[in-house]
């Protein structure tokens, strides 16, 4: 096909493939862990870190990642101290990091580059270095989740008993949160906030009501992600419409149609 003659569409496809894997794993985890909005929350919270980096003139990406990881690490602490649900610290960081950013930037007179565009990546503008980094991260996340699969399942299912049986719940959850955070920052930077949140939530939410087997649902989610990305790319080319938005709409249409299909269990 003519569309795949360009090297940037080829890179988009490869990135799409890797991001499908990352977002499916993270998406299923977040939904079962009832932290659906982690992705929207974190991708906005990054802004605080960016503005610190920008003001201090140090590497923005690095500052943002360090800032985000610190925020993420504080989540279990806050939950422990306040007994609030996990999503609440995320919700607080969502607004307070943006406010922090706005406040810091207000000290900078003159033009400030739109820091949000840091996260306005586009699947069409993936670089080769990005691909390598993403590949490494995909391998890392795959290895981690495969190796700790049953531990993670135990913790999600019954945290208290998991702890009683000697699992180091705190440490493991911190690892998962860290990987989740990096995954969100990475994919947002690569394909933008909207597309990244969409790929994390929508295909996983489409698959979950149908497939009552977690391992199978990982594969199904990855496939759905890939199909959305692939057909989104093609549609956007032939109808000359924005690629990211088209991919999101394809995934949404899959989700909406799935509502009308009979589920295995109905009561």
């Amino acid at each position, binding site marked *: 096909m003519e*569309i795949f003659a*360009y*090297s*940037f*569409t080829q890179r988009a496809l490869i990135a799409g493939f890797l991001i499908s894997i990352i977002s499916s794993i993270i998406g299923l985890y977040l939904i079962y862990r009832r932290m659906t909005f982690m992705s929207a929350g974190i991708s*906005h919270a990054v*802004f605080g870190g960016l503005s610190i980096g920008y003001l201090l003139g140090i590497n923005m990406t690095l500052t943002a990642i360090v800032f985000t990881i610190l925020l993420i690490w504080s989540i279990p602490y806050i939950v422990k101290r306040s007994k609030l649900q996990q999503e609440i610290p995320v919700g607080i960081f969502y607004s307070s990091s*943006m406010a922090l*950013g*706005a406040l810091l*930037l*207000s000290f*900078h*007179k*003159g*033009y*400030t*580059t*739109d*820091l*949000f*565009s*840091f996260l*306005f*990546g*586009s699947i*069409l*503008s*993936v*670089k080769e270095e990005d691909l390598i980094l993403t590949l490494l991260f995909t391998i890392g996340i795959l290895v981690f989740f495969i190796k700790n699969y049953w531990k993670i399942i135990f913790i999600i299912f019954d945290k208290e008993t998991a702890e009683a049986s000697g699992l180091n719940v705190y440490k493991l959850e911190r690892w998962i949160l860290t990987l989740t955070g990096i995954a969100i920052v990475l994919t947002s930077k690569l394909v933008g906030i909207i597309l990244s949140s969409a790929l994390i939530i929508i295909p996983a939410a489409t698959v979950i009501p149908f497939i009552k087997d977690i391992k199978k649902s990982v594969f199904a989610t990855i496939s759905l992600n890939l199909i959305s990305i692939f057909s989104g*790319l093609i549609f*956007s*080319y032939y109808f*000359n*419409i*924005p*690629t*990211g*938005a088209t991919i999101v709409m394809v995934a949404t249409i899959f989700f909406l149609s799935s509502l009308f299909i009979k589920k295995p269990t109905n009561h």
Partner: protein
Amino acid sequence: MNKPKIKLILTLLLIIFIIPSTSLSQERNIAVSIPPIGSITKYIVGDLWKISVLLPSNTNPHLFEPTPQIMKELEKAKIVVINGKDVDLWAKKLADSAQKDTLVLSDYLKIKEENPHFWLDPILAKDIANIIYKKVSSIDPSNKNYYLKNLNKFNKQIDELNKYIIKELSIFKNKEIIAYHPSFYYFFKRYNIKVLSYIEEGEGKEPSLKKISEIIRLIKSKNIKYIIKEPFINTPTLGTIQKETKVKIVDMDPIGYNKDYFELIKENVKILKEIFYEQNR
């Protein structure tokens, strides 16, 4: 614990209502939304009016926040001059909320297009100056002659600028360009600069796959060496195009913080010249 607090709050609210709104001196204060309009206004009103520019440094929808300082300037102002359309919708909102006498330039300019970057066309800048002149003279008729003198002087300067631009750019045969955002739309039209394409056609529009491939094709076939963007824009799409084509990205500033209007235009003309020089080699 809540009852005393509520009382406290109610008393505070009462106090606020009782304090009479101290009438603030609104004599000869003009607030303008963006710096170039401020500069043009300055040419008309001279030192008779104090001009304050409202534009906050970051107007991302997620972050846009006027400081109380800006609101104070606005509150003090007798007139608020606003460009209109998309660039300073926020200022329009602020001015409306303060119930100010607002002058929205786009309402008076006879332009049917949506693009709001009129001020970058020197000939339209004349119209802008004229609109401002009419407004200040109607408010302050006693100094009408002074304003008129200033307006004429400004118009003359613009004519010179116009000639200068035509002269500077006429030496190039091939004046083709690709720009990211259509901020110099009217300027390019005025001086017969052929825009092969705008990558982004308006706020919030992600360039499509087809668009990007067209741009790449254009750059390759027309031997385009530069893409123009605004200094505050930072989009990965340009990186993609750059990677495919080795095109260079240059900044052209449409706003000019603390810059004189004529300087701003000349600066940009200089950049254009360099681009054309390279592309005509």
